[in-house]
């Protein structure tokens, strides 16, 4: 037991020391420093990758002398993320992004300890009354609706399949939006939905896709990083796929029709100047089709009939100008 205690102390000390070694100087050199904590891998082709790519884009825009970011990924466990967030805040980063809805409770504890640091928390709609927390979310039901419209129009068997992760947050919003869009196009269409209960169980996602295909679906969609399994089955069985959170064309260039891509730069472009001006939080933001934070990217390699594309474009216009409301429970 004593050996374990000493070992743990040594580990903790070395972690603290390496953490301090990363201290990148004071804020006076004009460099805007951002740290982001993510629940899954940066290359998950979904949620975490979307934030990573947004920060890379900002860096390209602002230049490396003016903007720097670091990340810690795979911190699904809230306790681990809490240590990382606290660590980054104490190292003097201007902005610490808690990119995961499960981080709310821990951020509520940490943010008040660092009034000079700005925090972003997403996906969430509530800044918890803290002056240095920005909240952000994605109205993924909008893109879901557009995908649903296209899927219903394309489907010949009139059965659609949805492979969902866990029935929460932007996953649920996307799925509900998809169903609404599909039913608005073909009211009699069957949309089969299953949630696999995990964001990362690729094997179960793959079986779910097989099940949907056996149940007659000829178009599939899904969200979260486990969809890789579902896309593989769609490719194998020649079904069409609609993606979300990131452009998933590269996984199956022949069958991916379109993807709803999250572009967080739209929010970062607003928030970073605010922080530089001294406002560290207090507002909740959302990426939507209207502000360009949500973008429907079509796969040019897929032969999308012109009338379906027109339907999609009209739907996007309708959502943006408010004539179409995507009615989903938040």
């Amino acid at each position, binding site marked *: 037991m004593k050996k374990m205690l000493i070992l743990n102390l040594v580990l903790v000390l070395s972690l603290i020391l390496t953490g301090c070694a990363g201290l990148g100087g004071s804020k006076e050199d004009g460099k805007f420093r951002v740290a982001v904590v993510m629940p899954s891998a940066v290359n998950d082709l979904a949620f975490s990758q979307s934030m990573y790519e947004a920060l890379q884009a900002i860096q390209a825009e602002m230049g490396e002398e003016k903007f720097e970011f670091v990340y810690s990924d795979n911190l699904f466990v809230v306790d681990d993320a809490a240590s990382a967030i606290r660590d980054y805040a104490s190292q003097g980063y201007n902005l610490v992004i808690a990119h995961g809805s499960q981080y709310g409770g821990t951020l509520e504890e940490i943010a008040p300890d660092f009034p000079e640091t700005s925090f972003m928390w997403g996906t969430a709609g509530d800044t918890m009354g803290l002056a240095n927390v920005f909240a952000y979310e994605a109205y993924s039901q909008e893109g879901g609706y557009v995908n649903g419209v296209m899927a219903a129009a394309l489907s010949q068997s009139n059965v659609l*399949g949805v492979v*969902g992760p866990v029935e929460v947050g932007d996953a649920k919003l996307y799925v509900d939006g998809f169903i609404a869009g599909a039913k608005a196009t073909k009211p009699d269409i069957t949309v089969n939905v*299953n949630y696999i*209960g995990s964001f990362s169980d*690729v*094997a179960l996602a793959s*079986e779910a896709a097989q*099940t949907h295909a056996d149940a007659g679906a000829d178009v599939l969609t899904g969200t979260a990083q486990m969809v890789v399994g579902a896309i593989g089955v769609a490719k194998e069985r020649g079904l069409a796929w609609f993606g979300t959170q990131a452009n998933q064309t590269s996984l199956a260039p022949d069958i991916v029709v379109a993807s709803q891509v999250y572009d967080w730069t739209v929010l970062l472009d607003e928030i970073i100047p605010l922080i530089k001006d001294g406002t560290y939080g207090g507002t909740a933001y959302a990426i939507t089709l209207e502000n360009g934070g949500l973008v429907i990217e079509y796969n040019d390699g897929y032969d999308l009939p012109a009338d379906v594309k027109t339907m999609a474009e009209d739907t996007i216009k309708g959502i943006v100008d408010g004539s179409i409301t995507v009615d989903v429970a938040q």
Partner: protein
Amino acid sequence: MISDLFSATVIIGILASGIRLATPYLYAAIGETFGQRSGVLNLGVDGIMLMGAFSGFYLVFLTGNLWLGLLAAIIVGGLLGLATAFINVTLQADQGISGIGIFLFGLGMSDLLFQKLINNVETVSGFPPVHIPILSDLPVVGEIFFQQNIMVYGAYLMVPIAYFILNKTTLGLKIQAVGENPEAADSLGVSVSAVRYFTVTLGGVLSGVAGASLSIALLNVFQQNLTNGLGFIAVALVYFGGWRPTWVLFGSLLFSLVNALQVWVQVIGIPIPSDIAVMLPYVMTILVLIISAGRVRAPKALTKAYERSG
């Protein structure tokens, strides 16, 4: 609605799906059975699976040669199994803890290698399904049993092979002896370390193959934490199966079939909340464990490191 469950498509779908899903559990659990029968608990199975999955995937990604990929998984799994044996048998580490260390190593290393060498979600062309001639044309049965992936057949083959080795060979006797009463075995000239090294390394090999069954056969992709805790369930299945290969098969199938069932239940729209549906395989397993409690007995020397006294 519930009546929809009893249509032919659904039943065939559930059975075929369950058989497929059970594959990695079978490879890993049968491998772990050998180790545990000889008295060594290896909780690092999931980590070895991930390293095997990545190695197989990377070789196939580079060369396109599936057998080379499988060989890579076998070698990497074997090496990690050897390391596990060294840690548990020679260094006599606390087996509950050392296993977690191996798991964390496998998880981190496979992700690190993935990020450094590939760093993008890619797919490969893995082992294909093989239609067994004549049998695969049988109605219903053909579709369920005889049109599966070649690595699925491999997993089920492991069961009679393991049964034969453990129960019908001298080696099997030695394994059992070492697991029940290492002192007596030692006094009769059986090398406890050698037997344990063998079983744990074999367990590593099979865990590596289990990982490869995911990355180069069933899913054809690699991602961080691809196994998602599968290895731990496999270890639990060994307990569930009372350390006997046939019952490990039963446990793997039960778990996987109920999992396949809950997916179908959701897909055809039976109004069970998804959270409850997802729990079903685990709840089922717990229920069976409760019913069968007391009827199985662990190898007496399980988790106890052996040191010759005197």
